[in-house]
């Protein structure tokens, strides 16, 4: 009996494992060092306002947030320079209208506030996407719209950083830009993450001490019960 049952458990486990290997084959993303220090975030912000903002918005981030989140910590003058005549507490919006976008790209570019959490791979996906433009090996997709990491490989966004056919001496700079903007978008997707982890450390330390005390209390209370 025992044997039959054990072999059954084994069978189930094997089945589960074979299912695992069946998991969807997808291109492995490039690995990238996402860092949320102020220099990287500010650099990423500038890549965003210089390049991405031509098409994309950050609907959940206002210009004022750039001063208010200490992690970014921009000065008022710097914010004023970036926002031009947009109101201080308005969200960061592209000037590309939905109608123009549809006409030019056939699709409205998605908002990027949550993009770093809304794709498998998070920041690494954004980094890979920006540095993933290539020539279509089958020659079907026009240059600039073929991307190794985009599902289906045909993307309506045309190589924003100019990665395709870049000069070898520009490679480091382009990678740095991609890394910085991927880091910035990672921060923006969950702007309280550093604060959360900082508080979390103390919460856990407190709970561990409390639980230890409770354990000692439990031992003391139970000392008169033999079992």
């Amino acid at each position, binding site marked *: 009996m025992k044997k039959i*049952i054990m072999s059954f458990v084994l069978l*189930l486990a094997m089945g589960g494992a074979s299912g695992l290997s069946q998991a969807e084959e997808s291109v492995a993303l490039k690995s990238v060092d996402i860092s949320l220090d102020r220099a990287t975030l500010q650099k990423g912000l500038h890549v965003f306002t210089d390049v991405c903002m031509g098409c994309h918005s950050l609907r959940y981030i206002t210009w004022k947030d750039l001063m208010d989140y200490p992690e970014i910590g921009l000065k008022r003058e710097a914010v004023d320079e970036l926002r031009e005549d947009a109101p201080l507490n308005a969200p960061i919006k592209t000037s590309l209208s939905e109608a123009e976008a549809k006409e030019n790209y056939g699709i409205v570019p998605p908002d990027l506030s949550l993009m770093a959490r809304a794709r498998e791979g998070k920041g690494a996906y954004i980094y890979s996407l920006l540095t993933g433009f290539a020539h279509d090996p089958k020659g079907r997709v026009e240059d600039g719209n073929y991307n190794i990491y985009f599902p289906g490989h045909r993307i309506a966004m045309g190589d924003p950083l100019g990665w395709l056919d870049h000069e070898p001496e520009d490679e480091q700079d382009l990678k740095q830009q991609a890394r910085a903007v991927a880091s910035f978008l990672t921060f923006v997707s*969950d702007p309280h993450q550093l604060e959360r982890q900082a508080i979390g450390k103390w*919460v856990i330390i407190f709970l561990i001490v409390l639980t230890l005390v*409770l354990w000692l209390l439990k031992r003391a209370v139970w000392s008169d019960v033999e079992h």
Partner: protein
Amino acid sequence: MIKKILDSSAAQWLDDRTHAVQYIRFHLIDYPTPKNLNYMYAFGSIALVVLILQVLTGLFLAMDYKAATLPTGNGFSLAFDSVERIMRDVNSGWLIRYMHAVGASAFFFVIYLHMARGLYYGSYKKPREFLWIMGVMILVIMQATVFFGYLLPWGQMSFWGATVITNIFGAIPVIGDWLLQLVRGGFSVGDPTLGRFFALHFLTPLLLVVVVLWHVMALHVVHSNNPTGVETSEKNIIPFHPYYTVKDLFGIGVFLIVYSYFVFFNPTGNGLIIEVNNFNPANPMHTPGDISPVWYLTPWYEILRSVPDKLLGIIGMGFAYVCLFLLPWLDRSPVRSARYRPVYRMMLIVFFAAIATLGYCGHHPVTPELTLVGRIASVVYFAFFFMLPFVHKFEKTKPLPEDL
């Protein structure tokens, strides 16, 4: 200290008018408990803590949440925006929302262990049959609650999960279409659906609180079982307070450490607690390739999916719950605890493995291999219940102790 408060004249005054102090004494202080309860018995108290956390955090979320699908531009909606406002602009909103989202998963984790304990020590047997039935009712109400709650952020998985699951109603013969439209408030999942789900997401936790209180009151009539499953003599009984109050508090402490780890360091649980695709706003025009419910619903979803016919699938899933309800009468062995029942113990291990396998399959996109594995696991799930009425006939139980 507690004794002093309960003996005070103010407490006496209150007790003369409401019996409040007697209730506290009966349920929290004097409640007689066997002295050999292990830490598996802490999950009941832990579940109570999680329930309170869910109700409180839910209340605060509801203050800032807006149940409306009104478009706000580029595919976003008022509901989705309001959740992001909570996450970004409301003071400590991120904490409340993550506590609530992690709490939902934690609740199921704790309840599944609580149920596994009941199965292992045979706690569903006479005289605790109704206690077990109330437990299964609690499970069903919890599953309804998360199903309603998961629609609220109005993300892609909210929308498509609700669409797939409400579709189940449509497959019921004769009244299916009518029922489907009643649940959705229209032909497809939309603004009326969100409105009613929000209202229901408020109602079901209240029902839950009522049934949980009843569950605890009933427990204190029939008293706790124990790991040996044998009746306990007077000398092995100790009062709940202080022995189990401290023991449970210690268990709650350990639970809170794990819970806080997720809240503060991994609130999406790598896509298990909040799915990656739910950070995209709901888009009725774009069906995601891979729609799966959150992990705690997947075993039941997989049973549904294992049956090729839709209606039979629903019947199968319903039957999976019916089996749980009938368990106290299916098992006819006079011995309670699996410690003394070698065959039952083996069956249980296989049963747990089958549920885990079902959960795994239900969480992943269909492939021919996974479908096959899911079907085998479904058969094992039901085989457990079909074998139960017969095992006692040939099972050689180990000798029971006289007392604890």
